[in-house]
């Protein structure tokens, strides 16, 4: 009850300040969810950090909406006082994903932004960091995007040992080799 009151208060304050923030708040636990436009992301995050007490940046994540042609960046914030986490979402164009650099709000955002740049190809204007993060000498497309076919890439880049594709039943092979019978209770697990 107390938690619900706090949640409603937060929603009200955010919505009065940012008119076009859409919220989806049917969660039973301590979670809130806002979707905003990418232009007001810095002001929303500054507001949540400085005024509302969401001082901890838990994670910056990304969702690839391939069918809609968009990338969704998700900021997960945590308030140690209210014990509530807030998800702030924004959508970027998939062909030209550009958004503002945010590591002046939280310094650790720098690391997450480098990861998103490498894995999803999102460009953060003004991000000062070395080009490579985890992948070394990477020349392909951003690997975490959904239209990147990792199996095809692996097939053409690396050697493969033949013998994987037969997919034979190990239990039957072993019993045939050693001349045993499969017990009745185990037969229902055979292919």
């Amino acid at each position, binding site marked *: 009850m107390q938690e619900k009151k706090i949640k409603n208060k937060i929603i009200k304050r955010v919505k009065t300040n940012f008119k076009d923030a859409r919220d989806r708040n049917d969660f039973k636990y301590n979670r809130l969810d806002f979707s905003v436009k990418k232009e007001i992301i810095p002001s929303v995050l500054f507001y949540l950090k400085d005024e509302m007490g969401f001082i901890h940046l838990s994670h910056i994540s990304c969702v690839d909406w391939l069918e809609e042609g968009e990338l969704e960046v998700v900021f997960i914030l945590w308030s140690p006082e209210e014990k509530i986490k807030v998800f702030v979402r924004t959508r970027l164009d998939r062909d030209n994903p550009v958004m503002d650099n945010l590591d002046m709000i939280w310094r650790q955002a720098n690391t997450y932004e480098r990861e998103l740049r490498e894995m999803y190809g999102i460009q953060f204007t003004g991000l000062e960091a070395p080009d490579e993060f*985890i*992948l*070394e*000498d990477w*020349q*392909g497309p951003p*690997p975490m995007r959904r239209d*990147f076919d*990792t*199996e095809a*890439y*692996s097939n053409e*880049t*690396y*050697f*493969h*040992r033949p*013998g*994987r594709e037969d997919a034979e039943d190990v239990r039957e092979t072993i019993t045939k080799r050693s001349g045993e019978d499969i017990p009745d209770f185990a037969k229902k697990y055979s292919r």
Partner: protein
Amino acid sequence: MINDKNSQKIVDFISNWARKHSIWVLGYGTGCGAIEIPPTMTSRYDAERLGIRGAATPRQADVLLITGYLTTKTLKRVIRVYEQMQDPKYVVGFGSCTINGGMYYDSYNTINVLDKYLPVDVYINGCMPRPEAVLSGFGKLQQLIGEGKANGATKYKENLEWYRANQKKVIPNWVMPEYNW
């Protein structure tokens, strides 16, 4: 006298016998396989009774133990470590990932067949191999060394161009020192 065929045989026998009873392992702990090494080394399975023990640096080690999947980034370091090791040197591939990719066969960043890049003497199968399997693999390696058949290092030197071509295929930016053995 040493050119005499029979005395060379005796020298080989003695040196192989000595080598097979003092295997110093450089555990290159890639992937999840490294967690099987502590129980193998400590009191329950006690690999040291067979002469198998850890080495601190590549130059002191005889065996390069590669425990699990190798990303292309790690492969670069592994090649460098292998080339720093001094003869006699052997490679043990540990777990399914080094054999055929294991559960990471379709990953964009892990190699699948280790023996195209480094000469593997013994493979230990399993995901993960238990300490018994590890000891059995080392037993096989000892047997091969005793018979003088564990000649991966010679193979690597003789076919260096083939190995280099494979390595450079997955490591496009090649900035490695050339060792002159």
